[in-house]
């Protein structure tokens, strides 16, 4: 947690719930951000890392700008997600699945790839919904708004070197 910018502000939380109230997906979360902070204080590590809340975060930053204590809540959510992946603790593999699939594409090609992303993610996690989404993908193709093949950047070797080094340094930090 200490690596999160502004994380040390968590002990300023007054449990007002402006985060949980502001969250567009707050109604779907098992614990609201406020409750997560209370659980963090209570050392309930597993309950925190198993929560679906960070994965339902849409990065809209409402909680961050509205927090009366200026806690960087969205950034804390990112940290919780990476901690959950490292600890292997999440109740639904589909949630980190999207992030990981996305990261895979970025690490292979340097760009994201919508068609691959959507199909691979859905194949693995929601095979039944794939057929339902097909018209959308087809529509995108028809309108020239989607590629059939991913584009690989030229500096892939450079990017890989940078990312590998960053991950090595990140490992060292934690």
């Amino acid at each position, binding site marked *: 947690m200490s690596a999160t910018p502004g994380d040390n502000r968590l002990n300023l939380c007054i449990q007002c719930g402006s985060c949980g109230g502001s969250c567009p997906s707050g109604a779907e979360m098992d614990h609201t951000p406020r409750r997560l902070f209370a659980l963090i204080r209570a050392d309930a590590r597993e309950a925190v890392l198993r929560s679906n809340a960070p994965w339902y975060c849409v990065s809209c930053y409402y909680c961050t700008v509205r927090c009366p204590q200026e806690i960087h809540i969205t950034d804390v959510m990112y940290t919780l997600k990476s901690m959950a992946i490292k600890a292997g603790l999440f109740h639904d593999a589909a949630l980190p699945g999207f992030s990981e699939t996305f990261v895979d594409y970025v690490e292979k090609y340097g760009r994201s790839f919508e068609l691959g992303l959507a199909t691979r993610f859905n194949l693995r996690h929601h095979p039944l919904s794939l057929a339902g989404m097909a018209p959308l993908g087809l529509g995108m193709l028809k*309108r*020239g708004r989607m590629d059939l093949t991913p584009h690989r950047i030229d500096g892939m070797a450079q990017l890989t070197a940078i990312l590998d080094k960053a991950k090595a340094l990140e490992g060292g930090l934690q």
Partner: protein
Amino acid sequence: MQRNARPYLDSLLAIREDIDLELQEIEDWNCCGATEYMSVHRVAAHALVGRNLALARDQARDTDLLTAGCSACYLNLAKTDAQMREDAGLKDTVNQALAAGGLEYEPGAMKVRHLLDLVCHDIGYDAVKARVVKPLHGLKVAAYYGCQVVRPDYDSRWDSHEHPTAMDKLLAALGAEPVEWSLKTQCCGGHMSVIGPDVAFGLIRRLIHGAQEAGADLVVTLCPMCQLNLDAYQVEMNKHFHTDYQVPVLYFTQLMGLAFGKKPKDLGIGKEFVDAAPALAKIQAEAPKVAEAKRKRRPKPGDALPMPGME
């Protein structure tokens, strides 16, 4: 922008000379990681963005402005730049990683600005107005800003995190009538359209319904992700809820192009899922007449109370 936001790119290219905007693409840029990379590897996410910042700084000719049209790209660039400025440790780590690829970035070297910010605040409403040849009279528009351009707003570029007015003023300068609505900066659903469509459909319906209720003929956006969710997923949302909303969603650059007299086709109009043609047909040649304010009379008991002003 080359693919899913092709209309955004086409319209931007079509209007750039009108607004004296010289654009230079960063060669061999990589994906910013959207909101996903940060969720898996925090430092590497900054290094990923750091590469773009470093490439931009090295390639930029006579400018320190770095602009992005996409909310997430803009936010990630601004965020890495801001957090490297604030946190010397992070700056050091990111630069160690970049060094592995022979790069380096001094935070603050590039001024990261969203395209709308440049158009509204640097080019200015007057310069835009001066280029209008076909004012969008009679077109009611809902300016939709989404989340990540106006929040968290690391460099205080906007007048409000909740109810900004920059795009409304721009659209008014084009002759259109921006509607007052409460959902300007509500979430479009972001990645939930893929990982939790039910949540996203709810958010999309609320936005589309809200725009329609406010009397808008179309929604105007500044981000490919928002456009995709509100336009393409509007169709899916209709299937999901058995509704038939038909609110087209265009980019602000497309409306600028129309007002500047460009051909719709050159602006990528027609590539949207919800057809914008019926809405655009409402554009009138004449400015609508504003009803004259009623004369003040004595209030009687039971009359409406005065409304507080916005100032």
